[in-house]
């Protein structure tokens, strides 16, 4: 492993899952709870190897159901806490995530997506987009959802995820895929101990003399109260819109825009390059936050450009949000591969060419 010291920062060649785990330790992780599942088991393996020598705790739970409820307990007790899993495991966690969202507990959830439905395949997929950005469990709630497209972003978004989760008291989701988890790239790691965490005053730490008891709950049995909690949550999700992030590449002179998130955005950048070599002016918009969704940038781009192609590793999920954002101003088409298949730039180019005829 290459290693170079840089004023507390380090540059290393690392696998996505391991880089994410190292970033979590450097972000001051207090506790990790998880259950093994391919293709992200390296996260817990790396943590169990390294945490005893550093700080924090890691506990292998008996199931994803248990681990997400451990995340609830630790977050409610004021810890900086995370879990990670892959698609079938995330499905098991949905009940707990709904409780966490309702009780407004900050935590970081990582889904290294694999192909589904069912037990599916261990190859990469983006089939859990709906589950991540539309809630996933019961009731009206959202996760602050970040979609990394490089191993570097697997590192950076751990910090960003914790920051947003704690700022808004929401669960944050890092939505990666099996390829990002498994591939190795050069990463710059921030120095450890630069990201302080204060135990929140609402946490259950023991009822000290002079303060009222702290209660973490998602039960509000009076409908008037439950409605108010829902209104408060919705107001918070609205306020989170200022944190929206996206990347626009060569969109200024483009005749057609590719829209993709995560790994697929990188494939689209290559496809756009190939298209320009053939004289087709193609730009790329990459949503970085999937919730909040970059509605504004898509909508304003559609004032100038009338053709959009959304590419995903699923049957067409984000494309629905792109269409809602563009609201009929432009033609939005979709190209997708499923079941663990990764689209290549050439097949995207073929689709682009057919749209420009």
């Amino acid at each position, binding site marked *: 492993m290459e290693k170079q010291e840089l004023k507390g920062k380090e540059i290393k060649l690392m696998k996505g899952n391991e880089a994410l785990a190292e970033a979590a330790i450097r972000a001051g992780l207090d506790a990790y709870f998880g259950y093994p599942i391919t293709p992200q088991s390296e996260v817990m393996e790396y943590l169990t190897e390294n945490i005893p020598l550093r700080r924090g705790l890691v*506990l292998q739970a008996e199931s994803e159901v248990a681990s997400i409820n451990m995340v609830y307990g630790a977050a409610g007790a004021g810890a900086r806490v995370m879990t990670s899993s892959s698609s079938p495991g995330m499905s098991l966690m949905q009940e707990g995530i709904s409780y966490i969202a309702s009780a407004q507990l900050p935590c970081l959830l990582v889904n290294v997506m694999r192909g589904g439905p069912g037990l599916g395949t261990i190859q990469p997929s983006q089939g859990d987009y709906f589950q991540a950005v539309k809630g996933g469990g019961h009731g009206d709630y959202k996760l602050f959802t970040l979609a990394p497209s490089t191993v570097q972003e697997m590192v950076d978004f751990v910090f960003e995820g914790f920051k947003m989760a704690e700022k808004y008291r929401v669960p944050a989701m890092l939505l990666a895929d099996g390829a990002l988890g498994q591939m190795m790239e050069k990463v710059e790691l921030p120095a450890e101990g630069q990201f302080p965490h204060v135990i929140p005053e609402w946490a259950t730490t023991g009822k000290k003399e002079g303060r009222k008891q702290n209660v973490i709950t998602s039960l509000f049995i009076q409908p008037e109260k439950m409605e108010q909690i829902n209104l408060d949550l919705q107001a918070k999700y609205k306020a989170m819109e200022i944190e929206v992030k996206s990347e626009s590449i060569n969109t200024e002179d483009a005749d057609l825009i590719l829209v993709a998130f995560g790994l697929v955005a990188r494939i689209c950048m290559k496809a756009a390059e190939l298209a320009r070599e053939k004289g087709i002016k193609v730009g790329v918009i990459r949503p970085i936050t999937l919730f909040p969704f970059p509605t504004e940038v898509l909508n304003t781009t559609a004032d100038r450009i009338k053709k959009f192609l959304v590419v995903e590793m699923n049957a067409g999920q984000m494309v629905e949000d792109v269409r809602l954002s563009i609201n009929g101003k432009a033609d939005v088409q979709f190209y997708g591969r499923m079941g663990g298949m990764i689209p290549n730039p050439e097949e995207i180019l073929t689709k682009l060419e057919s749209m420009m005829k």
Partner: protein
Amino acid sequence: MEQFLINPDCMVYDNHPVTLTGEPFHYCPGCGHGVIHKVLMEVVRDLGIQEEVIGVAPVGCSVFAYHYMNVDMQEAAHGRASAVATAIKRVRPQNYVFSYQGDGDLAAIGTAETIHTVNRGENILMVFVNNAIYGMTGGQMAPTSLIGMKTATSPYGRDAASMGNPIKITELLAQLPGAYYVARHAVHTPNAVRKLTKAFKNAFEYQKLNRGTCFIEVVSNCPSGWKMSPVQSIDWIEKNMLPMFPLGDIKVPDPKTGDPVMVKNN
């Protein structure tokens, strides 16, 4: 003119410990939950650990335990109280942590979490209230419902062949090396309440030793779910519940070595 309905000398628990919020219990007349809440909180007061205690409430009739127990608490999803309590204790090892669950919560939907929490020997107190029925949802068959017992989902009586047998999860858990102190108590007589008080006290004191899980089952009643008067329900505990769920210590620390040992006949 002040009039005592009960002679204060006969009280087995204090009505107003500072560790209760003073909110009136919502429990049905004759239900054991109120007594168990009071006894548990009285022990927390007597040990002077109110500032250190963090509790976990279940889903079931005692879902609002935090309305009454005046300590920091978390409300867990159905069956997950011991997973939640595990995490609280792991991130705050200096605190006393307890979970409070009914039979459906602990011994049906939460069986995996229950067994693995005890198997890891988490240093928490698990309180298990066994009234052999799902009270809050309207009296359905529970994992501990007795053979022949009529409930909303066993209207002809629980039949072992098609519905399984009542699970003695406390005995099962006592077999695990992580279990440090395991006992079954009740609240149907003043004497039983006194014994339960002592057991809760033991359990919190053992928690300081970091030796493993303390697990206390409390055999209780559900007059509404059992379709009985409170008095009839107490009689029914004696005649039907206790033969199946006998009271007493199951696993206790050896006074000399401090190592947990099984009590004979268990």
